[in-house]
């Protein structure tokens, strides 16, 4: 096997040499960077999609990887999270509430059906319909006609002609187009509506890749994608396809990259944190990603509301040594938090007013805690709930220790066997202390980090935070006429959060990954997923 591989390298080197020579002989062409084989299949890691591959019912990373590769929405995101038009020619509005979407000509699904305004309107209506029970239905809740508890048509969507449709939102939203690159907004071909379950097994999309024939999805094993010849958008693949191999353990995937069976791995197992840079010199990545992690502190507990609560929240936050924990426990694969969003999002700031509450400050923490004790003395143990099946124990213990050593109170981790069990107590408002919480953005916007988590009554606002000022600022930000103005409002809203501290920001998860010698141009996107279409294979 070893010899075989050497042989292949030798042959490809010889071939490359020949190419270079002929290039020189021609003399006119510029010496381009060694280009990859446009037929080569890139192998990468993934996990078995949790649901059939229907864009509006795919919210987890396993299925998300496939759906974003197989479908193209109105827009897509660059590696930095900037918008680029895909199917859309323009998305325009005068009042940020009534939008007109015009589609580019020539787009087709891989079954040759043209992509029309109807493909979008029908797909969004399907995703939003109550009885279709789609996990991402809430993404459409800002379109007129949406209902959370009964079947109703999205009356805000109107097909004008083959290539144009209009959208009426419930309220103005200046950065509404920002979210349209999320996979839930993909168009669907007509064949999908005949039998959605069957379609989910063999989805037909308009994206850069398509499934390699019937049965390309081998359940629990892998899914094979090949380039879609009908695709002519901004994500044109530089390779011949993508084979997403499903792994239950990142250790196995890491061994496979080392053993030459896998080209790109978008995660590094804990055990390899210390060695990945020497295992893969110049072929690894460790950069901040759009993942925010924090400790949520419920308001229904004694000592944690009102003026006393405000003091205690700040004291706890200042007693956590984020720098040391990200360094020692995570080997630098987390970045200490300075706001409630992420450094990869446009509008991120490390200079928010009141952000010093996120810095380790032993003296101030003790002082604030003592002030709170003067209001009502604190007794008992401070616990941090986490699910023990997710590898959280080490950092939770470290945070608890940091609090214990700073404030001199009893602080411990409280393990739940599964995520479901922890969620149950959070939903039932039965927590006895703080709980770990995390959020990964669906689309690159400040709004997506704030509204679902802290707005009064929002779906993921499980600890029941409610602030009129925050809600007002969020609403103003959404209705702002320019992105700059919106960003200013969202930052102001975060300053409210820094004062109230419904959650104690901890750190941003970095995206970590390694790749084999055989591939080039591996760049990781803002959403922690490699830009697969750009990868070339030698």
């Amino acid at each position: 096997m070893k010899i075989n591989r050497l042989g292949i390298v030798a042959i490809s080197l010889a071939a490359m040499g020949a190419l270079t020579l002929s290039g020189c002989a021609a003399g006119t062409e510029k010496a381009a960077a060694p280009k990859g084989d446009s037929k080569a299949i890139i192998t990468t890691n993934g996990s078995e999609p949790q649901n059939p591959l229907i864009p509006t019912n795919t919210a987890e990373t396993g299925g998300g990887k496939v759906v974003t590769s197989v479908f193209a929405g109105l827009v897509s995101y660059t590696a930095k999270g900037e918008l680029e038009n895909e199917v859309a020619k323009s998305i325009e509005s005068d009042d940020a509430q009534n939008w007109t979407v015009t589609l580019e000509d020539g787009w087709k699904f891989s079954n040759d059906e043209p992509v029309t305004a109807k493909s979008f309107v029908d797909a969004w209506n399907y995703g939003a319909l109550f009885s279709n029970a789609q996990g991402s239905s809430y993404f459409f809740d800002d379109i007129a006609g949406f209902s959370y508890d009964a079947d109703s048509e999205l009356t805000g969507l109107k097909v004008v002609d083959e290539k144009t449709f209009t959208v009426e939102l419930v309220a103005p939203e200046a950065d509404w187009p920002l979210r349209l690159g999320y996979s839930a907004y993909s168009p669907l071909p007509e064949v999908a509506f005949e039998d959605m379950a069957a379609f989910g097994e063999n989805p037909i999309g308009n994206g850069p890749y398509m499934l390699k024939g019937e049965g390309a999805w081998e359940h629990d094993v892998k899914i094979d994608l090949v380039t879609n010849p009908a695709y002519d958008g901004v994500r044109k693949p530089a390779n011949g396809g993508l084979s997403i191999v499903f792994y239950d353990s990142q250790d196995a995937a890491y061994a496979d990259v080392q053993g030459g069976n896998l080209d790109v791995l978008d995660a590094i197992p804990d055990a390899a944190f210390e060695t990945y840079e020497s295992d893969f010199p110049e072929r690894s990545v460790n950069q901040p990603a759009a993942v925010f992690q924090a400790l949520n502190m419920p308001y229904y507990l004694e000592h944690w509301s009102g003026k006393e609560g405000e003091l205690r929240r700040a004291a706890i936050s200042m007693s956590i040594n984020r720098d040391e924990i990200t360094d020692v426990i995570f080997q630098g694969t987390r970045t200490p938090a300075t706001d409630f969003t992420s450094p990869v999002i446009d509008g991120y700031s490390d200079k928010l007013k009141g952000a010093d509450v996120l810095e380790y400050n032993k003296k101030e923490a003790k002082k604030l805690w003592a002030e709170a004790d003067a209001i009502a003395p604190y007794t008992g143990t401070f616990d941090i709930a986490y699910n023990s099946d997710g590898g959280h124990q080490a950092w939770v213990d470290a945070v608890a220790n940091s609090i214990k050593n700073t404030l001199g109170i009893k602080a411990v981790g409280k393990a739940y066997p599964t995520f479901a069990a922890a969620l149950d107590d959070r939903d039932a408002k039965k927590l006895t202390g703080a709980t770990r919480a995390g959020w990964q953005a669906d689309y690159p916007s400040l709004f997506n980090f704030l509204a679902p988590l802290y707005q009064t009554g929002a779906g993921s606002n499980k600890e029941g935070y409610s602030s009129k000022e925050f809600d007002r600022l969020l609403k103003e930000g959404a209705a702002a006429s320019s992105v700059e103005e919106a960003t200013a409002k969202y930052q102001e809203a975060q300053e409210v959060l820094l004062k109230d501290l419904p959650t104690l920001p901890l750190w941003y998860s970095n995206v970590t990954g390694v790749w084999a010698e055989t591939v080039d141009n591996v760049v990781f996107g803002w959403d922690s997923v490699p830009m697969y279409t750009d990868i070339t294979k030698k």
Partner: protein
Amino acid sequence: MLWYTGKRLLQMIPVFFGATFLIYFMVFSLPGDPIAALYGDRTPSPGVIAQIRAQYYLDQPLLVQYFHYMVGFFQGDLGTTYSGRPVSEVMASAFPVTARLAMLALIFEAFAGVLVGLIAGLRKGKLFDASALVVSLLLISVPTFVIGFVLQFVFGVQLGWARTTVSGEAPLNELILPALVLASVSFAYIVRLTRASVSDNLNADFVRTATAKGLSRPRVVTVHVLRNSLVPVVTFLGVDLGSLMVGAIVTEGIFNINGVGGTVYKAIKLGEGPTVVSFIAVMVVIFVLANLLVDLLYAALDPRIRYAK
């Protein structure tokens, strides 16, 4: 003999019902709402969750859920996973892979274990015996995942002799390394069992008689010593077949094998009742059958054991 076998097979019926119900009860008692947890931090609307719960009867009491499962079971429908795949399909892909892996491991541990144990027993106190004891002690005391990772790194990454993980179709040649890892601990036990049993039997009266009759050494060893020494080994192998089929989670994880252990583990974590129960039901049947087979083999190996009415 036939009557005995029939009786044992009939006993499987209450065992089957009891085991499935118990498992269903245990999965039912797992804390938390499995559907809400499926979506992680991105909570779908409560209406969506309620509809999905109803679809899987999760809003019903335990007995109703079990009843629905059993009605489906006798119509050949084992229910679906939360991703909508029929459980029967999941089983059809997981069991053959694990069966191949377990069989390879069993063959390896049986042949190599008995051979090494026999030689060690015959040469008690010699160098071979001492090394066999040391190696088996090492294999028993080092956890499987250590052996797994080391072999994977050495043979897969450094030497490149074997594929680091097993590909989807799980062909036999790729399963050799995982099977060695899986068999390692049982191999050590079998070496020790065989060795002890052989060295006991060497001093037994019937061996002295056989030797005194003038039988050749090979015939004494194979027919008289070995055959009688195999009774405890066979018992162990029978029980081990069961645990190899179900307990390969660690090995399957290291080599990314899509087998029974990993599937059940994931299903338990997701709280997927029908999947867990269906898999465990098959495991129970395998266990019972393996034990029956062992009991029948006793009679074949030891003429003193007979199953009458």
